[in-house]
């Protein structure tokens, strides 16, 4: 018998690459430390997940919805620090989500 694949209609989910060596489909959900919504969900201000509500990666290794973090940084109490570890927030160079640069 010879089997040839002609075409394949598949279904996949997209995930943010949060840098964690994730064990694939272990469904422990990674959530944004600010709004407690999953990364693949969207921040309270957005309606569409994904490219419209991207993530932001900090050098401290914490990851947030970009909109959540910017809002946090904008408040006086933030003192420009990461809300999780209170270190000065520095956005990781390499990992800025491209916004619709297709």
């Amino acid at each position, binding site marked *: *018998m010879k*089997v040839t694949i002609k075409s394949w209609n*598949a279904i996949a989910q997209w*995930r943010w690459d949060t840098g964690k060596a994730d064990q694939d489909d272990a469904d422990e959900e990674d959530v944004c430390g600010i709004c407690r919504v999953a990364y693949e969900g969207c921040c309270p201000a957005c309606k569409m997940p994904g490219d419209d509500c991207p993530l932001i990666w900090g050098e401290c290794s914490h990851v947030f919805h970009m909109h959540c973090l910017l809002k946090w940084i904008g408040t006086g109490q933030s003192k420009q620090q990461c809300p999780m570890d209170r270190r000065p927030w520095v956005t990781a160079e390499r*990992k800025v989500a491209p916004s619709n640069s297709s």
Partner: protein
Amino acid sequence: MTTTATPAVLAFVEDKWQEAFSNLNHHQPGISGLMTLSKAWKIAADFLRPRPLSQPRPKYNPVEVKMAFDVLGQTRLLYTVLENFLDDMHQQEYLIKHEVEEYMSKYEETDDPRIIAQLVNRLVEWFNAWHPLAEYDSSSVPDLWLADSQDDAPKSLGHVVTDHFTVAFHTHIYSILPPSFSRGFKVLVASTLPISDDMSDNVKLDQSAWESFFALGLVERYESLIASVCYEHIEGYIRKTCEGKWSEKMLTGMREWMTKKMVPWMCLPYARGAKNSEEAGKMMSGVGSRFDYHVCKVLCDLRTSEIFDMIVDFPDSKPALEDLKECLHRVDQRSNLVSTLRKANKKRLLHPGADTKDILTQYVSIIKCLRVVDPPGVLLYKVADPIRRYLRDRPDTIRCIVADLVGDGENGTSLVDDNDPLVPLVSRDVEDYTDVTWEPEPLDAGPDFRANKPGDIVSTLVSIYESKDLFVKELQVLLAQRLLNVTDGNYEKERRNIEILKVRFGEAALQVCEVMLRDMTDSRRIDQHVQSQKPSLLHPIIISRHFWPTLQTGTFTLPSRLRAVQEEYAREYTAFKPDKKLVWLSHMGTVKIEVELQDRTLEVDVPPVSAAIVELFSERDRWSVDELIAQMGRIDRPSVSKGLLVLVDLGILKEEETDNYRLLEIAEEPSSEPGAVPASRSAISMDELPGAQTAQQQQAEQVRMYWKFIEGMLTNLGLLPLDRIQTMLKFAPGYDRSIEQLGMYMEAARREGLVVAKDGMWRLNR
């Protein structure tokens, strides 16, 4: 006694009379000495004497008779003469009695109402013959019964005489008419009814018959019998004319028929002696309204008995419903309508043999129909309650409603038509105090009645359940399925659906669906990009987790060749979207494969599990299920079995012995399962969406169709064990369920209270 003679005639007669009288009186003054008292008595008694009809009253001299009565009048003996006459009459009554007995025994033998008519005529003859004023009736002879009064002119006793005679005569005949007379009389009365219902015909009435009835006092005596003839005739006519005729309003026509056909007839008993139509109208007004009530009552009862089928027929039956509304205003039969419709619904609608879709369709029609009949919605509230409770317990109600909302109506009939306003759902629990159209609740509303705002059908259906969340969930599942099924990239229909649903359910509830829709278009764009970079066989739909109904992610190990295709695609994706990666839902989707075997080549769409299994069989042509599971890793046995079954159906594999499969390089005659349809297996991915009916519910649904058979069986045979039911069901067309499926269904039927199980035996719950 009425005289109709003109004054000229009267004057002439008066002259003649005076002339004759003065001749007899020898031109003496007064009348004393003209005739002795005893002679006068004899003449008067003889004149009045009741005789057999065969011996008519002998010739008499009117002047002599008049003179005799005058003599008696002057001596104040007229009352005695009357008493004497009544005594005589009593003596002679046996003559009438004999005749009545003769006629009635003939009638009882033959049941021929013509005999009653003859009897009535005969009694009238007797009546006239014995009437003390008969000869003088409508004649111009002067009044015999003139009593002398002291001061004034002499006073006529004519009406006293007539009254006494009539009462005596009537009393006698009623004492001798047997009970069977009323039966015959009823037929006789009915025979005088207008025969033709042709509205253009004029009514021909038998007035003389009614004169006879009046003369004998039959109209008063049999008043209720005559009314019942009337009632029955009206009922018969309305039933004959209106039954099953729902597409036009009938009430007006019935009233017109009453006016044209029945009222002229009814004037005979009810407006006797009316001089003109105005007077007749006055006399008829009380009776008329009683009979109009009857018309409404009969039509109301008829329509009530037909209500279920009228609802099925809606909107064609709208005119009949409007009639019913009008009748209900006149006749208070609302509670009867409610109980009739509830009974019909229970018997014809709310049973396991009925399709949920059909129940919903009828429910929607009931809503529309009862809105016509009773706009405040009290009737609907009372009728709908059991339907709503029943629907709430059906596993597939939400699914049916939602499928309809997204336009999945299989045979084109939709619950919600274009006339239904596209409005946000009405929340039932919020009283709107600003509502200017508020009206007090109708009297029969009952304590839990909430006036249904003229709400839309969708709100009403959704409100079957406590919250709309269930619907939103189901909507999401259904839309997900539909989107995943779109193959031509045209999502316009779904987009339109979502827009409409947003109006009803609110923007927020549909937000999730918006995301799904965008995932679809994004996937297409991404695929176009990937294909342009590096052509692939793979065309994935890339979905946003959290926004789609939970899908199984627990993936299995694909054979390396398939895995390589996935990995290559994922690499290109990440190159395009550097911060994202793909997680494959390998259970889902379809693979089009070409299978080249020794004697044939097949091109088939199969689920990925089957594709993986085929791949393994290309290495080795015998596998056991356990070996396959070991190769595919982290996969459950049912999934493997399902994947195998697809290939068995396609004739690629064969189960040699339990759980051991062999590749069929050379095709074999399909033997065992000719009914299997391979094509239907290719869309298996849909089954895997959770939130869909559980398999158990589906199976119960499928057996439901055979409820009629089961019911018939248990009706005839009483108690049956499950395996007997199964064996007998095999005679039902198309029945192919397993005994387990049947068992689940019977269990469901038991919960619904249709059947009872005891010691492994089933019987109807009656």
